[in-house]
């Protein structure tokens, strides 16, 4: 206790009692999970989950498995980046999976080649207009436009009609899926140009995912936009009284989420070399799950992109781990469900514990 001119002031502060950053706990969970798969593998299969066991390959880790772990989550991970900032801002976005479907269909139809093996492309939608073999920027801009419009509608509905984000984005989820099916009457759209196909080739999805993750982590930490996301999510009334333009900010948040979903659509359809109306089903829930597992609080105000990236890795490790243990895919989904609920329970428990000052 220090003495001031007006008597006693100041409170003691114990630096050692500072809480861990939530991301550290998530990372610990990832390490434990990998350790568990490693242990089970060694004991029951006589194989290693993480390390290289093949003698003809010169590497410490099983690089193939590591690549698959991150590759299979990177597309949903791109969506999860957008969903993370929506949840931090106190909202939710259920429409991202359907936006992926609709955007993939529409963008792909602007990325088609004119001839396949010397014959006219049977799937080309705009061949009559001569809109084939377009430069890759065209389908890219079309995709971003789709995401922007969907996000704009989501954001405007939430900010100006004040309906709950759950309902607004649920409406978009159903509508966008309908658009995806209507676009080419349920037929897949295939045969993209080489330049479009290059976007999702090999490890490109991973590179795009990690670059966007770094960009948005920087935006959340160092810009006014990021600060206002956290402020609105933690106390919307306080943010309003502080002069933050809540409606504009919310529209921007959902627009960014929409654009990120459309980028995921481009990467996915490019990787698969085809677009189908059923693409991205349930991606919105996987993305929300990655964020929640990564320590993003569903009540808003807390979380980070780093957390979500680690959350997505936990996802990838579970899928790879179950394949490694030769368990059926059914079990993956069951365990995924349990982990999502467990992560939210843990978050609630952490919040309560903080509230009582333990």
């Amino acid at each position, binding site marked *: 206790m220090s003495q001031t001119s007006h008597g006693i002031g100041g*409170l003691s*502060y114990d630096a050692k009692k500072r809480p861990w950053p939530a991301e550290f706990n998530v990372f610990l969970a990832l390490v434990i999970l990998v350790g568990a798969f490693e242990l089970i593998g060694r004991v029951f299969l006589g194989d290693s989950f993480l390390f290289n066991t093949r003698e003809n390959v010169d590497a410490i880790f099983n690089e193939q498995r590591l690549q698959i772990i991150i590759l299979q989550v990177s597309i949903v991970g791109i969506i999860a980046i957008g969903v993370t900032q929506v949840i931090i801002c106190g909202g939710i976005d259920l429409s991202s999976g359907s936006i992926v479907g609709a955007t993939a269909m529409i963008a792909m139809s602007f990325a088609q080649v004119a001839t396949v093996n010397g014959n006219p492309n049977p799937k080309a939608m705009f061949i009559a207009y001569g809109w084939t073999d377009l430069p890759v920027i065209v389908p890219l801009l079309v995709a971003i436009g789709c995401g922007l419009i969907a996000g704009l509608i989501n954001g405007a509905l939430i900010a100006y009609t004040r309906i709950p984000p759950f309902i607004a984005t649920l409406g978009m989820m159903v509508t966008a899926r309908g658009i995806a099916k209507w676009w080419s009457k349920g037929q897949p759209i295939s045969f993209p140009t080489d330049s479009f196909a290059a976007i999702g080739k090999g490890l490109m999805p991973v590179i795009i995912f990690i670059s966007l993750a770094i960009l948005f982590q920087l935006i959340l930490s*160092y810009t*006014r*936009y990021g600060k206002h996301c956290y402020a609105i999510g933690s106390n919307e009334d306080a943010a309003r009284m502080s002069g933050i333009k809540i409606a504009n900010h919310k529209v921007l948040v959902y627009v960014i989420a929409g654009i990120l979903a459309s980028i995921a659509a481009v990467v996915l359809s490019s990787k698969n070399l085809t677009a189908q109306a059923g693409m991205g089903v349930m991606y919105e829930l996987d993305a929300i799950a990655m964020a929640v597992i990564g320590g993003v609080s569903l009540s808003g105000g807390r979380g980070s992109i780093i957390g979500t990236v680690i959350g997505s890795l936990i996802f990838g490790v579970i899928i790879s781990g179950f394949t490694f243990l030769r368990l059926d895919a059914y079990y993956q989904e069951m365990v995924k469900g349990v982990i999502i609920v467990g992560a939210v329970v843990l978050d609630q428990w952490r919040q309560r514990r903080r509230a009582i000052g333990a």
Partner: protein
Amino acid sequence: MSDIVLKTENLTKHYGGVHALQEANFELRKGEHVAIMGDNGAGKSTFVRQITGVEQRTDGKIWFDGKEVNFAGPIEAREAGIETVFQNLALADDLDVPSNLFLGREKVLFNLGPFSILDRKAMRRATEAALIRTAVKIPNLSSTIRHMSGGQRQCVAIARTATFASKLIIMDEPTAALGVQETAQVENIIRTLKENGEPLILISHNMRQVFDLVDRIVVFRRGRIVANLRKQDTDGNDIVAYITGAKTGQAELQAA
């Protein structure tokens, strides 16, 4: 007229048929600390809401800083220099102290619209300066508001008003939910503001606090100002009599 910071004339607010505030004439001079007292529903908060632009008055005029003003909203009032510490603290729980102090008016390094890069160092330095100026002690600036006690939160809310060149600070029951030591801490800040010559309107139910801190006491009853007394001319019993209506102040007000 020049040393009058705030003046209201016949300030009136009706909510439908309810006359929440009637013909309030109020003056605040430079460096003066005034307490507003009164029972629940006497019109204290209504009065403050008209001044800070949270609500639009039914009738009457307001002068602030030498000019007649019509604030369309609380943000305009704040930009004009009226800082309010609200009863329900307007703080974001998940942000640290500098972020809360500069919420909605962040200092930026590069202006890129919404994606402007924040000048975190400058905000941190300004926060430290504001805390020193108000003699507020916060153990760790980068700790979030969630981890702070009620007193510390209140101190942050008050320090926020002092960070910006405010011309008038209004506090609506700043110690209502605080413990003894925390109350003392907030009262120290108010004394510091007094020493710095910053004018203050304090809404409080705490008689001891009011007599400790302010120069003048204004009592509201049933939407009217019934007493306007200098501290040395009155005592607790007198004030209670005005608050409860045992004494009506009309005669004295007219005499003054």
